[in-house]
Structure formats: structure tokens, C-alpha cells
């Protein structure tokens, strides 16, 4: 049973990556996080369905429970490490900008021409809008009192900051 749980969680994760690769070719870039959640739920649902027929009712609950937890942690680890750094890290983007300049190198003025405060803020705002957390009205932006993925992440970070205080705050 041990191997079945691990292999099935790994297969689910590979399927998750493949589906992500396909879905991201046809969807709005700003809704990436929402799509990741949808893909996770879809793959988890399919795994439940397949598991019920493969293992029957006997071991179903235990296998599914373990599978769900391991698969969820795989997706969270992937999102927190690989995906979020590639998607939203300013440092990674700057490294890419400098790397693209090749042996000629680049200056701060050249970087700021196409990557600056305005573009960084606009990118975040369009993500919030696409996820339905923010409403744009001309030049004004209004926060909606909705359950927010970003707020959830912020609250987790706050909890960590409470447990692990820092002298820099």
C-alpha cells in the first residue's frame, strides 16, 4: 500500500504538471494562481474516481487520504518554490534581464526603460483584478471584500512572522 500511495501521488503530480503546461497555453496569464487551484482540484477529483475503482472500498479511504495529503503538499511545495519564483520574483526577472543582455551587459537605465515601478505595480493590480479581488474604475482601484488567495498567503506569512519574529520589522 505504501508504494501505491507514493506512486499514485507522483503520477497525479506529473499529470498536474502536464495539464498545467497545456492549460497555460490557452488561458489568461493573470489568472495563473486560480488555474493552478482548478487543475489541482480536477486532478485530485480524477484520482479519487480512479482510486475508488482500482482499490475498492476497503483500502480506499486510507489510500485516498494519504494520496491527497502527499499530492497537495507536492503542489504547495511546487507553487511556493518553482512557480512563485518564476512567476512573481523581481530578483529572478532582473537576473533574466541582465542575462538577456549577454556579453554586452546592461545598465540600470536600460533595465528601468522596460521594467520599472509602474510595470511592477500594474502587473500586480491586473492579477488582483483577474482574480476578482480588485475592481478597476478608471484610474481608481477598489478592494472587494472577497475571500482572497493572496490574502490567505499574506495571513500565513503573518502567522510565520508571529512565530518567527525578526529585528528588521
Amino acid at each position, binding site marked *: 500500500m505504501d508504494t501505491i500511495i507514493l506512486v499514485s501521488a507522483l503520477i497525479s503530480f506529473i499529470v498536474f504538471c502536464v495539464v498545467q503546461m497545456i492549460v497555460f497555453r490557452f488561458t489568461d496569464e493573470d489568472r495563473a494562481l486560480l488555474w493552478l487551484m482548478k487543475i489541482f482540484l480536477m486532478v485530485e477529483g480524477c484520482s479519487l474516481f480512479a482510486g475508488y475503482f482500482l482499490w475498492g472500498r476497503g483500502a480506499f479511504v486510507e489510500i485516498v487520504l494519504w494520496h491527497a495529503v502527499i499530492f497537495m503538499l*507536492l503542489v504547495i511545495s511546487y507553487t511556493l518554490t518553482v512557480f512563485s519564483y518564476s512567476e512573481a*520574483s523581481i530578483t529572478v526577472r532582473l537576473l533574466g534581464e541582465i542575462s538577456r543582455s549577454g556579453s554586452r551587459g546592461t545598465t540600470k537605465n536600460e533595465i528601468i526603460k522596460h521594467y520599472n515601478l509602474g510595470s511592477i505595480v500594474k502587473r500586480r*493590480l491586473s492579477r488582483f483584478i483577474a482574480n476578482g479581488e480588485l475592481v478597476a474604475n478608471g484610474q481608481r482601484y477598489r*478592494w472587494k471584500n472577497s475571500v482572497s488567495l493572496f490574502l490567505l498567503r499574506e495571513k500565513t506569512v503573518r502567522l510565520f512572522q508571529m512565530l518567527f519574529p525578526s529585528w528588521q520589522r
Partner: protein
Amino acid sequence: MSDGIIITFAFTCSLILHIVIHRVLLKQGVVTIKSVRVYIIGLAILIISFLNNMLLLPLSSFVLYGLITLVMYAYYLGLCHPAETPAGMILRAFARKKTQTLTELTRLFTVQGLLWNRIDQLVVAGLVSRKGERFFVTAKGGFIARCIWVYQKFFNRLLGG
């Protein structure tokens, strides 16, 4: 179910110890990512449980503990290298005032804090080198940038940031 209890116990012990170590080190003015090594204690608890035949699903238990520790590491890494996170600052601005303009939001940030400090971090990390006013990617930085580019290309995420 007993495996779940053992994993929870192992992780909770390590987490409490980590919090204590972090706070003790903080009083001495040190915050280091190396403090996550304390999670080896949880691993030791799992190994002892395994050797005493207490784990029904040993492989899954070790993987589960490893993944929980990895998530913990990802969050702790963010706390050890605090920087202006734009999304977080924008959210805090909206928590203070429900309606904001683009100008108000852009004013929350400085080019120094958001961009130049990060380039300095890249230089310190040896991923970028500086000659006068120009910045060049090092071999190590180039390798990382290429790996990220391949990932972004595969997943159609073209430009991050």
C-alpha cells in the same frame, strides 16, 4: 492513522525547537536559514519509530515529513531574506484605505528598494558581476537564468516579475 500522529508529533517537536532556537539567535542579532537543520530531530523521531516497527507506511511517512519540512523551509526562507514584497504592500495599502489610485500605489515603492537592492543581492550572491555602470551575468547566474527560461518557455510563462 498512527503514522499521522507520529509525523505530527515529530514535526511539532521540531517546530517548537525551531521557534526557540530562532528567538534565542535573534536576541544575539542572528537570523540564519541554517536553523532549519533542527528538523533533523523530527527525522530522527521518524527513524526511531520505523526501527521499532511503529510506522505502518514508512515510505509515505518519510516523504510526507520531508514535504512538510520543505514547505516550512520555503516560508522561513522568505522570513530570513525580507524584502519589499509588492503584492503584500499593495494589500496592506488596501487594508488601510479601500480605494486607491495607481499613483498612490506606485508611491508606496522606491526604485532603490524594489530594484537596485535586488541587483545588489544578485551581485553579492555571485550571479551578476558589475564593471563600472554595467552589469553582466556570471556563469552561475547564466545557468540559473537559462533553467528559469526553459521552465517559463515550457509553461508559457514568458516573463515573470
